[in-house]
């Protein structure tokens, strides 16, 4: 456990709903080892995405603590958390989140350009070739299929060599065959770069490929956890 890259202690998230307070996460504690792969699984509304957003520092818990890459997120303000994300974290989303106004190459370059890296274009080109899109560099997202868009998103996620990759239903918008290809790609890159992978999914087969799975039910982790 000493090599845990993500530690969560007693996380709770409560939001104001129209009639009463709604508890989305209830006292969740976990730890994820460096280089590992963990699937967060559960039914719709079980709090998977909320847990992911708390672990990634996109949102703050109502109570409890997250330690990401050795830093307690509670002690960081929003901009410091952003800086931590820039350094350590990559994302892959269900809805790809590519910018419509940028072409494939430019979408991948974006995080590198934010870092100010001079080799942004070269490295992005390599990554796009690695994901099999070397011939579609100047295509805009609307000119790409769903699977191709997700491959661009994966190239972008790995561009800044993150220590941790968060993936939110990465195959959720894709058909089974394409989804399988994307999954393969994700795991290959994960292995090559030694990234810690945290994946939200309700696809059981995808979850099985991860080293561990956390089952969420109504905001609580089920007891049969490792």
């Amino acid at each position, binding site marked *: 456990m000493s090599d845990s890259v993500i530690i969560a202690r007693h996380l709770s998230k409560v939001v104001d709903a129209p009639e009463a307070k709604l508890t989305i996460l209830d006292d969740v504690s976990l730890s994820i080892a460096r280089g590992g792969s963990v699937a967060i699984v559960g039914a719709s509304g079980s709090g998977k*995405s909320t847990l992911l957003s708390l672990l990634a520092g*996109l*949102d703050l818990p109502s109570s409890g603590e997250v330690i990401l890459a050795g830093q307690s997120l509670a002690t960081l303000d929003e901009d410091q958390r952003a800086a931590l994300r820039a350094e350590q974290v990559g994302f892959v989303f269900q809805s790809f989140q590519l*910018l419509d106004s940028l072409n494939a190459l430019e979408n991948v370059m974006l995080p590198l350009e*934010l870092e*100010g890296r001079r080799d942004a274009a070269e490295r992005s080109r390599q990554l796009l070739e690695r994901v099999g899109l070397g011939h579609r560099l100047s295509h805009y997202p609307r000119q790409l299929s769903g699977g191709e868009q997700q491959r661009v998103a994966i190239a972008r996620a790995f561009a*800044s060599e993150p220590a941790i990759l968060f993936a939110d239903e990465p195959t959720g918008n894709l058909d089974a065959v394409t989804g399988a290809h994307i999954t393969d790609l994700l795991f290959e890159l994960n292995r090559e770069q030694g990234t810690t992978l945290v994946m939200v999914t309700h696809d059981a087969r995808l979850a099985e490929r991860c080293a561990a799975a956390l089952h969420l039910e109504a905001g609580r982790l089920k007891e049969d956890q490792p």
Partner: protein
Amino acid sequence: MIGRDLPLASRLLLREWRAGELRVMLLALLIAVLVSTAISFFTDRLQRGMATRAAEFLGADMRISSREPLPQEFLQEAINNSLQHTDMVDFSSVTSSDMEMQLSSIKAVGPDYPLRGEVRIAQQAFGAEQVATDIPDAGSVWIEPRLLNVLGLEVGDTLEIGYAQLRISALLTHEPDRAGDFYSLTPRVLMNLADLPATRVVQPGSRVRYRLLVSGSEADLQRYRQWLEPRLESHQRLTSVADDNRQIGSALQRANQFLGLASIAAVVLAGVAVALSASRFASRHYDTSALLRCLGASRQRTLRLFLLQLLGLGIIATLLGLFAGWLMQWGLIHLLRDLLPPDLPAAGPKPLLVGSATGLVGLLGFGLPPLLRLGRVSPLRVLRRELTPLPGSAWLIYGLALSGLSLLMWQFTGNLPMTLAVIFGGALAALLLGSLAWLLLRASGNRLRNAGLAWRLGSGQLLKQPAAAAGQILAFGLILMSMVVIFILRTELLDAWQAQLPEDAPNHFALNILPAEEPAFRQALDDIGARSAPLYPVTPGRLTAINGEPVREHVTKDSPGERAINRDLSLTWASELAPDNLLREGLWWEQLPPSDEHRVSVEAELADSLGVGLGDQLSFVIGGATVEAEVSSIREVNWDNFTPNFYMVFSPGALEGQPSTLLTSFHLPADQRDGLRELTRAFPAMTLLEVEAILQQLRDILDQVTLAVEYVLIFVLLAGFTVLFASLQATLDTRLYEGALLRTLGARRQLLRQANRLEFSLLGALAGLLAIVAAELVTWLLYRFALDLAWQPHFSLWLLVPLAGALLIGFAGALGTRAVVNQSPMKLINRGA
């Protein structure tokens, strides 16, 4: 930090541009800058052109006058400032032939006279005119035709002025600086300054005006003026285009006000377009902002990246706009070349400054507030798309934008009351319009609930977000309001001017009619078909004291009061108040208790300048005797209408026993000018003054103004359409998505087309209704507080404007939403996901 982000921001900007994201915003900014630059260029040049015309009335850009010869250093400094210059000496003297004598006003001019405008001469009375290329040769004079009649002379004969004998080489038909005081004018003689010593008329103590005329570039004149003003002594007077001549002054002023107002409308409209497109830009970039944050950019840096893009866009738009505005102004001037003065002066740097300032104010004031929301996008939006940032306190920034705009407006109009009237009228109207729009929308929504599907869909679009729809109605309402206000002002201001100067405005003044000749003169006017104003008795007299104190102590230098006391006033008495005079204070004679005291009614502006009020005792010296009169009323006088008007009107009997002549003005159609010859023969002592030429000059100016106004209106319209399309663009995304959805559900294109048309027609009609309400309010405020005109409601517009709004916006809306009807639903559903 900025240095590091600048290249990235430029790259992002370039990519956004390539992807076509920025075109609407750039267009809006571009048009804002273009419109204000073009209008500013055009009005600047036109104003300079009109100032040139006004300068013709002075014969120069600036005139320095004195009772004594002007110091040599005044001339030297004019030369040092590379100004054109010439000397002139005015005086009255008896001129004579072998048989007759006549008091004449003589103007001895130096070479280069006039510096502005032209002198026209003819070889016989009422003969063909030609423009004089020089001044009279030494030894010769040009005289007014009527002097020929009086003295029984012909062209070529000799005229005596003092000891000099000068040959009459031509008849003087037009001199540019004639339009001064009609009442004191005796026939004009124009002579060469070189002949002046030979006349020996000008002796120490003679009543003479020495004048120095100067002309040149504005900067040179300004420098000269600054040097000169502190050196002027009390008897020396500086007159420039801006402060000379009532008639031209007020026409110019109104023209400036109007053009300024049109510019304001265009700038406000363009600002609205910028705000709308910036808002669309912002809402389309929430995802980008969230993603940047997610990728580790700080809130500050994200915002900085967007602001740098905005700034870059602003700079590009401003440069393009300045250039396009400059081009457009040239095109405009080219189109109007036959109607504009041929030598329209070049514009100064001001239009470029105004254009850039408009770009900056529009960008920061209207573009910034929506963009600031981009800094508040939560990174969590990448997971939960429904998270849109809260609207911040944009009030402060809109307040700043409004203040900036106010400054711009003030700059445009140079008229603070008008600027304030427009701003407060506009703000009040916006508030009223906004709430009213919201109420109307809800009312019509309730009414349409049971209407057909197309109606429900159309009004549903508006009712879905009533606040947004009210905002749109407000935006369109403002455009229509501006257009309506301009339309109303255009017609009514011009009507007001035209009403003051109708085609049958008096075009001749007749002075020095002997009281005994009055019946015969009336008859003679009837005979030649002239229509005459009443005949007023005129007695020259001087105001010497107010309540026993010498009048000099009451006036400050350069005030109208000073002008009035420096010379003989034309005093009159009348039993009736002249029809276009208005009593501001006090009562007319018949409403006052009978009294043995003499009473006098004073013109309002002069009264203010002299600090004279009701009950004050004025002393006049008339023909060597002192006459006392009590101020019993203060009159507003319309000086623009070329009928006889007087600073001082005495009660009947007050001037009894004083020598007087009669004065009137009359209209004689141009084709009956032959009658003038008979008139001057029958009444040789009468002085006849033709104001036709002056009127024509004034009409020319009004025509130019009308023209400018109409073309400026085109720019305003252009700005209006930008807003229209910008606001359509702003809602296009959701429309496309919903249109696709409806078509997926089986809606026919006809239905969608109908719903769109109904939606925008409803929007247009409501906007039109609000526009006319607001326009009435704004014009009332303007008329009441800035333009000083009588206001009446415009009932026909109450029907026309909503109808025009429905048609215009209905058509443009259908045009702008064609894509909703035409694009493939499948594609849209895919994209909307």
